[in-house]
């Protein structure tokens, strides 16, 4: 497990103000606003919580712990966002933690009553990391509106584990913990379906990949980095260089060659 390495511990503490205990798994909790993310967080961690701010940001940061099968987990509540590509401070915090904090698992909470819009965030996270679990929350609300969610089909479409919950009434939380445990232990390896873009974009990505691989040395998903470079996402290029200690000019130059 990567969270035990000492440099990773230091990095988590320095950049994110997070200090997991030895052998503790780190789970990032992401989701759109108003999907019951905090209810999931509270239901899983109870009163074992600590709140503060993200280092240098006026964005709330809540951490809590829970134990499943004698294994301790540190759950980190990320700001509620519709996306991790635009650049509000909240979205930056969420993106940076998933990307550079390298949590053992990222749990994406979706609203069962408007799945389509919520899946945008899940797909974005799937491009960054394969260590993802999707939680379709508010199943009780969905039932009231006569919305049925085919969890198995969703799982197959996405290629990642999907758990249905109604966190308010603790429905599905046991299974959620079990799946988080399996993915954190790497007993269960999600295989997120890759999004295929237009032939022009795919060709450009292919061209960039060798150079990106050389620069980032497998610390990030190279395909995702290529897509951000093509987006002209200067903020992300600057952030990469801070976290991976690269020279931003070098990245832009290499990519331009």
């Amino acid at each position, binding site marked *: 497990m990567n969270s035990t390495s000492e440099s990773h511990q230091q990095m988590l503490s320095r950049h994110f103000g997070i200090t997991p205990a030895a052998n503790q798994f780190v789970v990032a909790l992401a989701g759109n606003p108003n999907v019951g993310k905090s209810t999931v967080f509270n239901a899983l961690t109870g009163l074992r919580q600590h709140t503060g701010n993200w280092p240098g940001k006026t964005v709330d940061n809540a951490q809590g712990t829970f134990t499943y099968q004698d294994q301790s987990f540190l759950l980190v509540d990320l700001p509620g966002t*519709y*996306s991790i*590509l*635009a*650049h509000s401070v909240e979205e930056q915090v969420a993106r940076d933690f998933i990307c550079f904090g390298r949590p053992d698992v990222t749990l994406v909470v979706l609203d069962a*009553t*408007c799945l*389509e*819009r919520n899946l*945008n965030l899940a797909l974005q996270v799937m491009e960054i990391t394969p260590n993802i679990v999707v939680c379709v929350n508010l199943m009780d609300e969905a039932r009231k509106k006569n919305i049925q969610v085919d969890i198995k089909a969703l799982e197959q479409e996405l290629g990642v584990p999907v758990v249905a919950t109604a966190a308010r009434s603790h429905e599905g939380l046991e299974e959620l913990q079990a799946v988080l445990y399996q993915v954190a232990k790497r007993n269960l390896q999600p295989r997120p379906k890759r999004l295929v873009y237009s032939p022009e974009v795919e060709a450009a990505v292919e061209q960039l990949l060798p150079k990106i691989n050389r620069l980032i040395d497998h610390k990030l998903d190279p395909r995702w980095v290529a897509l951000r470079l093509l987006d002209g996402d200067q903020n992300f290029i600057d952030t990469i260089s801070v976290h991976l200690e690269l020279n931003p000019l070098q990245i832009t130059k290499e990519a331009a060659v």
Partner: protein
Amino acid sequence: MIQSADTRALSTLNAGESCWVAAIELNGLLRRRILDMGMVPGTAVECVRRSPAGDPIAFKVRDSIIALRHDDASNIKVHIANKF
């Protein structure tokens, strides 16, 4: 995508009218945000209500309701759907 010559600005819809998004003529962060809300070319959008001064305007997109400024909505081009 639906091809048709007659597009209108999203801002011209009356409450109750439905349409398909044809093009999003916005740039930068606002464009990204609109896309993130699930409003992409081909998406069905319904005008739910207009505020008294016509700004902002509420639209139903993929089962959720969002409000857009008149100026921003005027840069989103749509095909009117209720002719069918």
